């Protein structure tokens, strides 16, 4: 869902040559196990390559800091962050990892288009950092060749 949201973002800005399928069709390419097992993030490149045949997508898996996330957002590049949602909401670690699309920030919050909460959901920064650290401060960038020429990706 997060990767679809990012691709839609690029599509709306004219950076994607492929016409995106419906969300249901998109989800099908991830196979039927995604509902119970989640998806293996490192396979994202393979899945997306199949969907966006006309575009050269670049999927980067990184580890960073809040500052690096904010730098991407200032450059108008949405970021998929991976964190422990149970830790964020209830202060208890869980084995499952939640993905959300960060789209902005304020001094107190990271703003996310979130699969659970919808648009611009504010994740309080301190708690987010704690939950994010449990997943090694990992995040994913999905960009296209055209995007890379338009925006710098390095923070």
């Amino acid at each position, binding site marked *: 869902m997060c990767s679809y949201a990012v691709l839609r973002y690029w599509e709306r800005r004219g950076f994607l040559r492929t016409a995106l399928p419906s969300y249901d069709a998109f989800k099908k390419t991830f196979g039927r*196990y995604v509902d*119970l*097992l*989640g*998806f*293996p993030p*490192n396979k994202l490149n393979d899945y997306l390559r199949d969907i966006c045949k006309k575009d050269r997508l670049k999927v980067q898996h990184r580890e960073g800091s809040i500052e690096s996330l904010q730098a991407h957002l200032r450059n108008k590049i949405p970021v998929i962050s991976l964190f422990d949602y149970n830790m964020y909401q209830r202060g208890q670690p*869980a084995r*499952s990892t*939640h993905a959300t699309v960060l789209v902005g920030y304020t001094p107190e919050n990271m703003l996310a288009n979130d699969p659970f909460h919808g648009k611009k959901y504010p994740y309080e920064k301190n708690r987010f950092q704690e939950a994010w650290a449990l997943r090694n401060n990992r995040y994913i960038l999905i960009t296209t060749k055209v995007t890379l020429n338009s925006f710098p990706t390095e923070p």
Partner: protein
Amino acid sequence: MPVLVQRVKEKAEEIIYNKLGTNIAPGEPEFVPSKKVWIVPLELDLPRVIDDRRTGNLNYMVFRLGSVGTLKIDDRFLKAVETPKRTDLNDAVEEKLAHIREKVESLLVQTASLQFARLVSLKHMMSPLESLVTTVLKRDTYPLPDKHSTTWRSVLNYVELLVKQELLVREGDTVKPAGLLQQIHQTVNGDINRTLELVLKDVIEKEYETVYHDYKIKILHPYVQISSAYYDYALSAHDLIALSEEDLWDAYTNQYSGFSKKRWFRFDNYLRELSDGRVKLLNEVETGVWEGDREVLEKLQRGYENFGGLAS
């Protein structure tokens, strides 16, 4: 944590990230000296989000399903020597979920047997049983029909069931009300309708599987499934949540193998019966918003804890 164990865990995390899925994490690695491999359990938490229409809150919880497979990592080079397939992991998760679902269903059948006994559709389907009980109570004896006759086979099946339940006793070619049936009848001051409900309650509570599998009476199943889907969510939320009709439908179809037009066609009627004044397993608290019964939930919670409820 010893450094090597930490490195094994990190390797397992890398494999999970690369090949398996975001709901999985490594458990504690165990070293097998004879094979020089580390066995790492793959533990899975299944996230669930419930939109509670009563409080307006999104309830998030995880089902801790425990180990769903194992990874084997070589001791010398820390390379994976055996990685399970996603299809096998998925099967293991489905099996665990089915086990939980069966437990919740079974608890619900035990807890709410009287409410199920009051369902009009069930009474209709089990009318041979009702006729049998009514007759033996009225005439004190009932001559058994010819066992070779197809027409009477269902009556004979019910005779067998009620004898097993010690509600009837056989005497030669007749059956009579047993002490237990007479006692039930007296407890409700000879009210035949209430006696029949209590007999049905007893049958549902103790012989639900027999009625379903042997007598092929499946009418009760969707009612159990729909209410079970609701109470499964309420149990995981630890609260009497209010679900929208769509969310309840989703819970029902997700837990019980998908959409079917026939089910959808009957869904409104199932809900109507489940919310009937004398059943009240579900209540429509506002248009299209459904809430369960507190007493049923509390009883279920006690039973759920006993079999080791998994949500947190």
